[in-house]
């Protein structure tokens, strides 16, 4: 299978302070990959660097075989990359529908907006019910749905998801993850997650990030046998 995203020896961080030291990650077509690791390991930084909100200092980020290190975020959306941060970053005083419309801002998506909107509403019927409501008035779970839906409106090939379970009740998290599973027939997903159980349940492959380095990777079945990982990660996030 073709790799849609490949990150090689990536170094990134904030001015004068490196957070990612050496990260190698690959996501293949229609694959769900999770990056797990303790708080401060650099999971969010990694996603931000892939999306271009943080400049990468060394190494390569290739999307669909093309180097994208120097592309601005809006160009990355244009070629099919999208990012849902844990803060969701919705437009609180625009309606649900307006939020979604803006999700299809790029030229490529704009031409297909009505179709996309229909698909997204089909996928999240809850959002259709609330389409005229202001985004700021939604519940936490609905906001997470809207954030994912807005990202889907850009007709992405790879969805970057940061901690989709943040601040949600376990049952809501479960329903979000079930929805995500349905999506994998269409696109690839890279999730940064502290909730290890969910990550193991949904992912084809898992990377473990520690202090800005990828220290292990493999299928969930291989990894869960590893006692080190068990002691380090299981239970911590419960």
């Amino acid at each position, binding site marked *: 299978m073709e790799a849609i995203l490949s990150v090689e020896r990536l170094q990134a961080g904030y001015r004068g302070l490196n957070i990612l030291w050496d990260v190698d990650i690959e996501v293949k077509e229609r694959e769900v990959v999770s990056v797990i690791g303790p708080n401060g390991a650099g999971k969010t930084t990694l996603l931000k660097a892939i999306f271009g909100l943080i400049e990468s200092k060394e190494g390569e980020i290739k999307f669909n075989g093309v180097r994208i290190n120097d592309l601005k975020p809006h160009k990355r959306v*244009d070629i099919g990359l999208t990012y849902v941060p844990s803060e969701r970053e919705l*437009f609180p005083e625009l309606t649900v529908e307006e939020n979604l419309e803006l999700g299809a801002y790029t030229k490529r998506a704009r031409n297909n907006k009505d179709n996309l909107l229909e698909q997204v509403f089909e996928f999240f019927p809850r959002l259709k019910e609330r389409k005229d409501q202001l985004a700021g008035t939604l519940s936490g779970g609905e906001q997470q749905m809207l954030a994912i839906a807005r990202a889907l409106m850009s007709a992405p090939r790879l969805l970057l998801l940061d901690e989709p379970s943040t601040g949600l009740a376990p049952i809501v998290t479960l329903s979000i993850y079930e929805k995500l599973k349905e999506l994998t027939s269409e696109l690839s997903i890279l999730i940064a997650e502290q909730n290890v159980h969910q990550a193991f349940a949904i992912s084809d492959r898992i990377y473990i990030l520690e202090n800005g380095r990828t220290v292990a990777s493999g299928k969930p079945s291989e990894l869960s046998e590893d006692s080190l990982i068990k002691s380090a990660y299981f239970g911590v996030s419960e």
Partner: protein
Amino acid sequence: MIEVLIDGILFGLQLALLAVGLVLIFGLGGVLNLAHGEFVIITGITAGMLSSLGVNILISITTGVLLAGVAGVAMDRTLLRPVYKLSGEMEILVGLFLTLGLAAAIDGVIAYLFPGLHFSINVPVEAISFFGLAFRPSSLIAGLVAVISLLLLLFFLRNTTTGKAIRAILQNQTGARLCGINVDNIRTLVFLLGGIMAGLAGVAQGLSSSVDPGAGLELTSLALIVSVVGGVRSVYGAIIAGLLLGIVNAVVSYLVGTYLALIILLVVVIGVVLFKPSGLFARSV
């Protein structure tokens, strides 16, 4: 008294035109544009000079307004570039000082080139009367120009994709980037719009009275006052506050004199900042 009210509404519309640009530029660029009043002066001088040279009035006005828009774009693309790389208090301070320096520089050149001149735009039409009240046609046109421009702006922000993108950036810049919106380009567009709206305020002023080239900083201060009362990030608020303050200013000036009227307005502003910093009419966009 009715004349006073009409004057107030006209002035209020001009204030609104000025303040909406200030609000948009602050919301998108993080720069409190202390050179905003200069856009009015640029338009007033250009239109006034061209029309006095015998150039067709519409062409003069259009040139003046476009020039203000171009000045806005030039500001964004050159002078203010370094500001956007900064963040927090630093961004605000550097933006303030840079635009203050620019305002002073422009004021100096204008005072040097046109000492003591005032510019007005003359419309060769007879006075009109309605219900026994005589209207100067130029004032009527000024009012129309202002109202139509403001309505167009609101329509643009409400109903076009680009307009929605502007509102989106006002609410959440990161969110806008996630949607693939090119924030830099939209910001430049907003400087263009801000310049044009302020230029139209200059047209309205040139039509209804005259543009004083030395009044740049004063106009900026008025726009600031209006935007604070309206809620610094609200276009609607700026329009309502502009109209309200214009009318209040006219009525109070008529009753107690201009100095005291302005002082009262300023005290109101300080009160608003202290007790309702989100503005009296804050509302999204």
